[in-house]
Structures are given as C-alpha cells and as structure tokens.
C-alpha cells in the first residue's frame, strides 16, 4: 500500500471507531435528560435510579468519544494538510465554532451534572443535562455541515490568487441541503443505537432488576421510532444525493446504463457464482426521483460526462463496496427495528418476552451500530475520487512529505490502543450494569456514586 492508501485507511479506522461512541453519547444524553425530567415530574424513585444508571453509561461512553474526537481535530492537519490549507477557510471556522460552541458546553455541563447531584438545586441540575443534550445535537449539526460541504460544496468561491476555497456565507454552509437531509437521518440512527444498548442491558439484567423493564421498553421504542425516522429521512437523503451526486446512487445500485423505470435489486450475484438478481421493479427510480417512470443516470453516462467536465480519469467509485454497504445498511437497520417492534409486541400489557428472544437480545446493538458504520462507509467511499465533490480530489489532499513509514506506525498505534480501549469500555459497561440500580447505602458526601468511587 502506498502512503495515500495508508492515510485513507487510517482516517477510516479512527473515524469509524470514533463514530461508535458519538451516536451513543447523543442518544444517552437525551435519554438521561428525559428520565430526569420524568423523575422531577412524577417523583418516582425508579426514574431517579434509571437516570443515574444511564448517566454512568453516558459518562463512560462520552470519555471515549472525547479522546477519539480529539484525534479528528488533529487528523486534518497531520494527514491531510494540503486539504486543510485549501479548505481551511471553510472547515477551520466550522471546527473552531463547533469546539467553542458545543464541545465546551458538553464537557463542562456533563461534569456539573454528573458530580453535582448534591451541589445544585434540582431544576438547575436537570437543566445541566438538557444543556449537554442540546450540545451533542448542536455538535452533530455543525460537524455534518462540514461533511456536507465535501458532499455538495456550496457557499464558497475559489480565490484566484491563492487557489484556495474562500467562505462566502456561513449560514448557507450550515443550511446545505445535504446537511438538512443528513442531520435528521443521523439523529434517527443515533436514537436506534442508543435504544439498542439500553434494550440489550435491560433485558440482560431484567431478572435481577425489575425496574429495567422500563428501560427495555424505552430502548425498544427508541429503536422503532428511530427505525421509522431513518427510513423516512433516508428516502429524502437519497433523493438529495441523487441530485448532487448522481454517481453515488448509480454506484449504490451498480446501474451501468441510464435506465427509465430502474429496478432495485435486493441481492445480486455474479462471477464466480451464477448470475442471479432479485429485483423490485421501478424501486430505484422511486427511491432516487420519487416516480416509478423516472430516468436514473447510469455509471457509463456519468463517467463520460465527468471526463468531459473535469478531464480524463476514472470517476467511478468502488462498485461492490457501494452496492453492498448501501443494502446492508438498510437491511441491518430495518431488521433491528423489526426485532424491537416484535419485542414490544411480545411484552405488551406486562407480558414476558419468550426466553429465546431475551437470550439473543443482548447482541442487538451490533445491528444498528453496523448500519451506522455501513452508512458512513457508503457516504464516504462512494464520493471517491473526490475529497470535496467536483473541486478537489483525495489524492491532492494528502500532506506533502508524509512518509508511509510514519503512517504505518501511527496506524498500528491507533489500532492497538483503540482495541484496548474498546475492551476496557466493554468491561466497564458490563461492571456498571451489574451494580444494583438502587444503592443500599446513601451516596457519600463528595461523590455521585456509592462508595467506593475512584
């Protein structure tokens, strides 16, 4: 592998890893805020216990999100300094404002909330977690705006003297139509994975803690609602992407020829296997353009068009990756939502879920987490060869002078350390979940948790 591929791989590894913890933090913060408000309104002890429990999951997850998010802030300069310089005017302020506006809020108020149970008046205490939750959502919005620029560059002008992108309007940058479509889709995906974690833990601990029933059903509802929202918002996002990056949607279906009334295949096999395709007629046209008879542009036509527009070269992304990540994303997400809906049905009116279901449910977070990851792999790889669509290629963004030895060394370092962190995170989550929800002794003076803490 050359230095470019290594640097891309490293970016993928650290970003995908970071993104396991981001949607969890977004949804757990919102759930903790909701539970604390429920406690304030009803004064039911069960809600207080669950708030504190979700708070522990949140703080452990948030910590990993913070330290891996820091890496993102540095990555653009370390590995992609040519891109950082070219695009610094657009991306720099976006990152800086995200840090100042959202990240500070999250970090400071999460600490105030977590350690402040006996230091702050109740309403102010509840306000701190609401602020954390708003901070996470704001963070997501601003970061997605930066990514949306790469998908659909707007609100910039190329400076004739420096050749760099110059920001022309920040609010236009934020209100990029890709962002307006991707933001709700991302939040819905976050709700699913957070809901899945709560469902998994609650079902696992249900026998020991009857109060977990509330959490299990809440988690399942989040998954079902999130699943419905991902479908609706995903449909809209698909249409926007067809408009701004027709190549991406053509790659998602491996549609080589421009087709009127294009079908969508559920599975396809090719050599070395016998050719087979299970198609749903007209579905691709509906997904892409909203009408069964609409014409969807094919890869070959788009390639010819881009070669004429941007010069010779291949503008076709990796087709099998685009094809399968897109399908598996939808499949994993919808399967997760269906399982959650089935759980809700079987546990209606205080019934118990069947044993086979509760035995397998603790594995449920794998599905929405996979869907989120596959979605991002699709979004980013099917934009290739562009780093910012139509204006800058990935190969032009890498830091000049960077050596493959350096990137290989850092890639190994990140992989090893991140692997250890994942194991530690899992062990802590497991241990925290095993603790009794309602502590027998009252918490000590200086801590939010029963002794021994720290």
């Amino acid at each position, binding site marked *: 592998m050359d230095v470019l591929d290594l640097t891309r791989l490293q970016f993928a590894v650290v970003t995908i890893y970071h993104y396991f913890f981001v949607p969890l933090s977004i949804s757990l913060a919102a759930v903790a805020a909701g539970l604390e408000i429920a406690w304030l309104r009803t004064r039911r002890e069960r809600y207080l216990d669950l708030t504190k429990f979700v708070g522990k999951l949140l703080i*452990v997850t948030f910590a990993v999100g913070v330290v891996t998010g820091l890496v993102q802030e540095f990555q*653009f300069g370390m590995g992609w300094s040519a891109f950082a310089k070219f695009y*610094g005017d657009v991306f720099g302020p976006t990152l800086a404002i995200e840090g100042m*506006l959202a990240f500070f809020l999250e970090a400071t108020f999460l600490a105030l909330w977590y*350690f402040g149970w006996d230091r702050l008046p109740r309403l102010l205490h509840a306000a701190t977690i609401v602020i954390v939750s708003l901070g996470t959502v704001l963070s997501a919005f601003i970061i997605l705006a930066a990514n949306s620029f790469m998908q659909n560059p707007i609100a910039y002008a190329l400076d004739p003297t420096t050749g760099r992108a110059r920001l022309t309007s920040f609010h236009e940058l934020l209100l990029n139509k890709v962002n307006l479509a991707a933001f709700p889709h991302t939040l819905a995906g976050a709700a699913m994975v957070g809901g899945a974690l709560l469902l998994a833990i609650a079902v696992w601990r249900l026998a020991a803690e009857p109060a977990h029933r509330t959490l299990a059903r809440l988690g399942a509802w989040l998954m079902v609602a999130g699943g419905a929202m991902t479908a609706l918002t995903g449909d809209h996002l698909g249409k926007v992407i067809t408009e701004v990056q027709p190549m991406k949607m053509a790659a998602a279906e491996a549609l080589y020829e421009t087709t009127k009334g294009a079908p969508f295949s559920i599975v396809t096999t090719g050599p070395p296997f016998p050719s087979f395709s299970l198609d749903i007629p007209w579905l691709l046209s509906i997904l892409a353009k909203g009408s069964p008879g609409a014409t969807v542009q094919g890869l070959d036509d788009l390639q010819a068009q881009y070669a004429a527009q941007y010069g010779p070269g291949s503008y076709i992304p990796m087709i099998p990756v685009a094809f399968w990540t897109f399908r598996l994303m939808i499949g994993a997400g919808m399967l997760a939502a269906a399982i959650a809906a089935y759980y809700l049905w079987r546990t209606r009116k205080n019934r118990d879920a069947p044993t086979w279901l509760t035995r397998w449910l603790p594995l449920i977070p794998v599905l929405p987490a996979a869907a989120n990851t596959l979605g991002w792999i699709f979004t980013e790889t099917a934009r290739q060869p562009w780093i910012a669509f139509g204006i800058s290629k990935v190969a032009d963004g890498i830091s000049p002078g960077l050596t493959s030895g350096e990137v290989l060394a850092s890639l190994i370092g990140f992989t090893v*350390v991140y692997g250890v962190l994942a194991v530690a995170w899992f062990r802590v989550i497991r241990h925290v979940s095993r603790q009794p929800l309602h502590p027998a002794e009252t918490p000590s003076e200086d801590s939010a948790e029963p002794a021994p*803490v720290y």
Partner: protein
Amino acid sequence: MITFWFWIVVLAWVLFFVLEGFDFGVGVLEPLLGRDDHERGAIVRTIGPFWDGNEVWLVAAIGVTFAAFPAWYSALLSGLYLPMAGLLLLLAVRGVTLEFRGKGPDAAWRRRCDLFLALSSGAIVLLWGALLAVFVQGLALGPDGSVRGGGLSRSLDPILTPAAALGAAAALFAALLLGATFLALRTTGPVRRRARTLARWLGTGGAAVLVLAGIAMSSRLVLAAAAISLAAGMLARNGREALAFATTALAVAGAVVAVLTAHGHVVLPSTLNDSWSLTMTAAAATPTALTLLTEFGVVILPGVLAYQAFSYVVFRRRVASERVPS
C-alpha cells in the same frame, strides 16, 4: 484583525497549558502522593469534574489555530506527524483511565488505572515540553511549507534534540509544581501535607537548578523563572496555597506566551532558509473567515469562561483525603 486572532490563539494555548498543566501534574503525582486506594481516589476526585473541560481548551486551541491560521496548523501537524500521533494516543489512554478508574471491577483494576494515569500524564508533559521547544526552534520547512525527509525520522528528529530534552525537563518540572500546589490547595489531610512538602522542596530545589542554568545561559527569563519557583516554594511552606498555585500558574502562562511570541511576526521559523519561515500574515485565513470567527468568538468565549468559572465555584470544596472513622 490578524494580530487580534493571533492573541486569541495564544490565549487558548495559555489556558490549555495552565489548566491541563495542573491536571497532568496531578496525574503524575497520584500514585506518588496517594499512599493507598482511598487517598489516590481523593486525588483523582480533585480533578474529576474539571479535566474534561480543561482538555476542551486543546480542542479550542487547535481549532482556532486551524480556523485563523490554516497554514500554521498544517505545517505544525504534518511536520510533527509522529509526535502528534503519540500525543493523541497518550491523551486517549489518560482520559479513559481517569474516567474508568472508579467504575471497574476491583482494586487491581484501579491499581492498573493509577499506573497508566501516571505514566501517560508524565509522557504527555514530556512530549509537550519537547514540542514547545520545537515551536521556538522551528522545523525544516521547505518553500511550500512542508517538511521533507525519509521514513520515521522525518517527524521524529525535531524532538530528538538537546533543546527538546531541556523543554521536556522544564515542562515536567512546571507540571509537577502546578500539580503539587493544586493538590495542596484542593485537599485536606495527609495528601495536603505531603503536597505542601513536595511543593516546598520542588520550588526551592528547582530555583537552585534554575539559578545555575540562568547564569550559565545568561538568560534573564530563566532567572525570573528561578525567582518564581522559589516564591512558590516559600508560599507553599507558609500555607499560602492559593497564592502558591496562582504564582506557578502565572509563570506557566508567561512561559507559553514567551514560546509563542519568540520570533515576533514569524509563527514558525524554517531551519533551512529564513525566507521560508511562516509569518503570521502568510499563515492567516481570509478576512471573511476572521470576521466570522470574531462574530462568534466575541459572543461564545466569554460565556465559556463564565460557565467554566461557575463549575470551579460549584466544586470549590476541598476533597478529604483522611479516612472518616467508621
């Protein structure tokens, strides 16, 4: 406008090094000043509510550097690729041990976290010290603002110099003094006693070394640092803990300002050719971006300072390190 943003960048770095400086110092001192699990827990609790907010100043500092001076950000981070990657890994380990320590299964888990906390905190401080020395010394910047070279040595060589070693030693000393005075200020009981003693010995001992170094290098800055170190040591001895901490913090702030303004309008000197050095104007973003940053920064940053100050007020009570008789 460019100068204004340069000073905002300096301010963000100063706040990062002062605020995280003390919690790095506390991290190194945790297994040394805490004799048992209970005392070590108390030490971690002094920074528990703060370290994360402090670390966001690094996000802010690097983010503002990127936003206001994209070429400076690009040259520093790509030219110092491996040290920066190492720093990020160490910060990851440290942040996670701080947060996971109290939530693991048993005492062995906590002991392992203590060890990783101290080692990673110490390594981070040493690395930052070396990096700050490189900020002053400069990098082998070519005409395009990039550092060329082969293999791992391209970005490792800059931190393997005598100046970088001095920077590392100075940073460790500063972080230990900050950490010791902070612990003396924030605890009661045996940890407070030990922290005071350590601050006293570090302050006076450090002053002696610094005086010799200052004379040898005939540097007024180093002699000033010696005077401050002595003052902090004496203040800690006399029980003026808040003043001892404030003095040390002020000295660290001064040192960071001195590093970042060492070459006036040159933000990063080239060691190859003076004309390839990166100047403030050449590194700056366009006026549009700076105006946008100003509009947001003027509103947001005072708010951040206010609510962070509020969190220090909420958690102002000292942490007890003595055992409560049961």
